[in-house]
């Protein structure tokens, strides 16, 4: 695997990032669009982003458990394909909000709702254009110590605490706790 990817820190050059590239608090999530725990934690991540604003650099990498979550690979590819059309985060949010409906037809519908080229998106998804990148995400997670989803790294350290707003915020901003 590529040794150049920082395994436990978001890389603004490579990753889908949100917030400020100069943010001093760096949060990296490894997630799976069909994982119920990832969907549950999604509003918490949103609230963290709102509260920490430009102090936060948030990055997301794919960690699809494709055998237990049969839609997770195509969902991840749809998010990547949306990223190519400059709307990764729109698709990312839509997928988590509609976790129970992730067939290819649904993915095309979400693309249309987001104003994307759905035909292109589905063509890219069904021809696995982004599969190598997703695999690279997955491998970096495995080597970084991801042992399930979601896994968060705060400033490069795996967060093993409770996945609620209070505990995550405390871990992200220890000086103000």
């Amino acid at each position, binding site marked *: 695997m590529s040794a150049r990817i920082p395994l436990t820190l978001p890389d603004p050059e490579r990753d889908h990032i949100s917030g400020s590239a100069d943010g001093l608090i760096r949060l990296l999530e490894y997630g799976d669009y069909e994982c119920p725990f990832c969907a549950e934690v999604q509003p918490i991540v949103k609230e963290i982003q709102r509260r920490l604003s430009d102090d936060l650099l948030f990055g997301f990498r794919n960690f699809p458990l494709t055998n237990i979550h049969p839609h997770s690979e195509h969902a991840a590819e749809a998010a990547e394909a949306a990223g190519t059309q400059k709307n990764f985060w729109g698709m990312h949010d839509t997928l988590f909000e509609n976790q129970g409906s992730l067939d290819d037809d649904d993915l095309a519908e979400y693309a249309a709702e987001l104003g994307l080229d759905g035909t292109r998106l589905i063509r890219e998804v069904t021809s696995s254009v982004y599969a190598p990148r997703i695999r690279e995400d*997955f491998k970096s997670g*495995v080597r970084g110590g991801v*042992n399930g989803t979601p896994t968060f790294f705060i400033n490069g350290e795996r967060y093993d605490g409770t996945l609620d707003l209070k505990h995550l915020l405390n871990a992200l901003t220890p000086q103000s706790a």
Partner: protein
Amino acid sequence: MLSPGTQAPDFTLRCTPDQSVSLSELRGQPVVLAFYPADWSPVCGDQMALYNETLDEFQEFQAELIGISVDGAWCHDAFAKHNKLHFPLLADFEPKGAVARAYGVYDEKDGTCERALFVIDSDGIIHWSYVSPTGVNPGANGILSALEDLRTKSETTPAAK
């Protein structure tokens, strides 16, 4: 638990209701033994589900992955089908936990295997071992590092055997 450098005790256990696997059959390639407490633990953080996704990485080292718990072969069969596992689960079922005991990773109190990992080299010698707290999925990184280390070692020891 058995330490690196020790000969891995051989065993023959059922992998399906009518088939068995012996460790000695797997000589000539690295073997990863993953002892775990029980089938049917919560899914997204499940160790076996994770390893199922990392089989390609293990395969890069020609390593064979084997899961072992005290669950019976029929239970393993249902669990493996449910999670679409593509590697064997062995039943350390009768006498219960005998193999886990031989490796020093049987939890007498709970009557289950501990969450323990062994990387065994192609000659059947334990190269690396690790026991994780039962509630903590140890992930795959330690295994992959051990397999890398094993490969480096075999490359730098010309014609050892």
